[in-house]
């Protein structure tokens, strides 16, 4: 059992809030599995399946096959814009 803190930034935070804790039976899962699990739990989280929603693990942007371990933080985020 691992617990992972997932947070949401940008437009998706309107639908999903800022943060939620998730618990998984496995020791080691992928970012893609977290996306799928969120979409299963919460209809609004289907937005996470859009390709422009990127993800970071421990503040590093990664692809969906990146693994996540206990204690790591996962951030899903909408399109960024500075300046």
């Amino acid at each position, binding site marked *: 059992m691992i617990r992972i803190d997932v947070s949401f930034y940008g437009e998706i935070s309107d639908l999903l809030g800022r943060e939620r804790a998730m618990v998984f039976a496995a020791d080691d899962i992928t970012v893609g599995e977290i996306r799928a699990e969120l979409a299963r739990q919460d209809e609004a989280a289907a937005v996470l399946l859009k390709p422009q929603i990127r993800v970071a693990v421990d503040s590093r942007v990664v692809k969906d096959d990146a693994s996540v371990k206990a204690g790591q933080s996962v951030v899903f985020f909408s399109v*960024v*814009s500075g*300046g």
Partner: protein
Amino acid sequence: MAATAHLELGLLDAGQELTRFISGRDGDGAVVSFTGLARANASNGQEVSCLRLDWHPEMTPRSLIELAEAVAARFDVSDVRVVHRAGSITPGEVIVFVAAASPHRRQAFLAADYLMDRLKTEAMFWKHESGPSGARWVEPTEQDRADRARWSD
């Protein structure tokens, strides 16, 4: 070659930033700055009463320094500075200040220009406008993407 970045949660005083950046600088000759101001009207013409820039405590500051360093490495500049607001911003307030110093005028212009194009599309902020006619999230415009695409990387 130096590059510094700062995430500012309070007000950003562009004049003071410029004063600090040029202070004691007698080897460079050329300093170009860009100051971005919050506008009272969105690109669709609607009135904006508040702009909010959401930010991530690690990813956002890191994106600023990484962009500043990329610019300092790419152009013949001696110093690059980025200061970027986060949080709630009122029309007329400064959102961003960037400056580049170089012995060569054109390099200073190119560095500031390139840095702004990258900040618009890559700095880790999430921009939200609200006003009397509603609220919306703001993404980089087609023009911002075209500006970014002018550069080879």
